[in-house]
């Protein structure tokens, strides 16, 4: 493989490049959502694409989340490749039935006769004072739904490669974009490439403890690892990247090596990704573990508005450090 040239790009620019490339490569790809056209979306992810591809392929919709996903699924049944934008992940309850009972089950219940290759891009996560209805992490709402794919990039390069891979994938993908990552910058390869789904990345190699994290918490975990390195603790950070179905192999291999595991997600602790990972690690690595698995997660509350309150309930670097210390004891 020849090494492509890279440029520094924001997460938003990387996503925009992926959409542009996908639209140019395949006439079946089109986009729909609220204010994604001339305005370019609430976060600017689709900026410039309406001017380039026109009304038919960059479709502004009314506030009709169920219809957005329904239209996506119906067109995907005939081979289109819709990329829908649900402005804030918190609104996904409006189309939950469409995703869970239609998109996720279409292929199965009709015995493989239909596919629903849709991508639903949505902005999730807190930390900016968005309050209870503009800040949630929704992966747990879908973790218990066979047939759904959950993709959650943490870097601009992965955002681009994973979005292109998601658009090409034949399954319904919910593509989680953490709002705190939109403005981060990173090296992004030029042109077309895909980053494999269902494949976690070792974001940082280490030997004493494994931290499995997603999205913003990957960055918190890396910051924690840098700090603990000064104390002589070697932290391996795994960026899960695909949350469902997830890459258990990479996670378990790392935990077998380090013998200690911290799982970190921003969503509330109960019933979420951290719980699932910790159960799987417990089942598969019990005899390799030197300490019980620690979960670092949001507190079991809605997300409050005031920044001090929000900071109190959401996990960050300090909570990851505390988690690591608890398993190092």
């Amino acid at each position, binding site marked *: 493989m020849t090494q492509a040239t890279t440029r520094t790009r924001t997460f938003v620019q990387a996503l925009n490049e992926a959409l542009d490339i996908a639209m140019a490569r395949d006439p079946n790809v089109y986009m729909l959502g609220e204010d994604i056209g001339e305005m370019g979306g609430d976060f600017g992810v689709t900026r410039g694409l309406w001017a380039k591809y026109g009304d038919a392929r960059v*479709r502004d919709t009314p506030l009709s989340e169920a*219809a957005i996903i329904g239209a996506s699924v*119906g067109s995907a*049944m005939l081979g289109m490749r819709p990329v829908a934008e649900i402005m804030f992940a918190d609104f996904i309850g409006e189309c939950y039935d469409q995703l869970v009972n*239609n998109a996720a089950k279409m292929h199965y219940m009709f*015995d493989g*006769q*239909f596919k629903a290759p849709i991508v639903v891009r949505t902005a999730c996560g807190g930390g900016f004072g968005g309050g209870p209805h503009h800040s949630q992490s929704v992966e747990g709402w879908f973790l218990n739904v066979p047939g759904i794919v959950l993709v959650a990039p943490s870097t601009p390069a992965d955002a681009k490669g994973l979005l292109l891979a998601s658009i090409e994938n034949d399954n319904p993908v919910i593509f989680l974009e953490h709002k705190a990552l939109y403005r981060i910058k990173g090296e992004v390869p030029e042109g077309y490439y895909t980053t494999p789904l269902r494949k976690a990345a070792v974001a940082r190699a280490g030997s004493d403890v494994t931290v499995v994290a997603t999205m913003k918490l990957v960055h918190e975990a890396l910051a924690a690892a840098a700090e603990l390195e000064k104390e002589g603790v070697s932290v391996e950070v795994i960026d899960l990247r695909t949350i469902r179905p997830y890459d258990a192999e990479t996670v378990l291999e790392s935990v077998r090596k380090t013998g200690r595991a911290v799982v970190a997600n921003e969503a509330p602790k109960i019933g979420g990704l951290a719980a699932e990972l910790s159960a799987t690690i417990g089942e598969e690595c019990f005899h390799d573990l030197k300490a019980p698995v620690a979960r670092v997660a949001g507190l079991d509350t809605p997300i409050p508005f005031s920044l001090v309150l929000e900071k109190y309930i959401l996990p960050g670097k300090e909570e990851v450090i505390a988690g690591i210390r608890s398993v190092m004891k």
Partner: protein
Amino acid sequence: MTLDIETLVDLYRDMWLIRAFEFGLEREFKKGNVPGMLHTGVGQEATQAALAAHLQASDAFFPDHRCHGINALAQEKHQGDGERIMAELFGRATGVCSGKGGSLHSANPKVGNFGDNAVEGSYMATVLGVALAYQMRGQPNVACCIIGDGTVGRGEFHESLNMAAIWKLPVLYACVNNGYAISMPVGKGHASADIVDLARGYGFPCEIVDGNDIEAAYDAVQRAIAHIRAGNGPYFLEFKTWRWQGLFSGEFRSPEEVKYWKEDRDPLKLAREKILAQGKLSAEDLERIEAEVKAEIEAWIDFAKASPMPDPAKATADVYVGWEVTA
């Protein structure tokens, strides 16, 4: 309008097929041979026969829980194997979804059957996408969703009609108003007992049709589909009809009401009178057709019963395209 005798007799046969299918199925259901739940389309045969007559295999329809009949007709008309709908309801490997879907989730895209969704009316949203794909590709096809009067209570009703209108999508809404949603009378559950009153604000044609008059139903579907195929956008048909099936617990409607619909307004009886009035076929001719259809349905039931059950290991297939289930 008066239909020519050949068309009318074909429709009569189709309606009979639906009724015989449902009665045969109900008998087997009561014997415990059919798992799950059973909703029948008896009393509503004219609507389904009219839709089946005009929809092509290259069109799409989303059937509802009372649509075994149109499913079987489409399967029979385009593929000649209506028995695979019966087998699906029996949960057999030979069913159209190999037993994974059953009564509430039978589909076959090759005959235009895009599948029921037992969360009533969810496909009011899905139908938009099928229509959108036709529109974006310049195909003159129709995407039809069959919805009950009760289903209209879903928020998707508004989202769907609105989006179909603003995008001028080729959607046929076939609303089967049989007066009730389980026990809820239509006029009590909605702001109007005429569903067209709820649909008119979206600005595309809406019609009330006598759903028990096969000629009226046939004519209305033809008109609506011609409008849609010509690129004029969506069309809403409200078929006034009545379902013979009561509640699972029994009959809840007044004896007068039951008598009126079963005796005076039976769509098969009305069709039969129309045929005989044309003076070209005798009562014996029609009885022969009825006997033929019943025998065919019994053969379908025998086929279903004789068919193998699915391989249990298939239960984990097709959760994802291209990926095995790991947990």
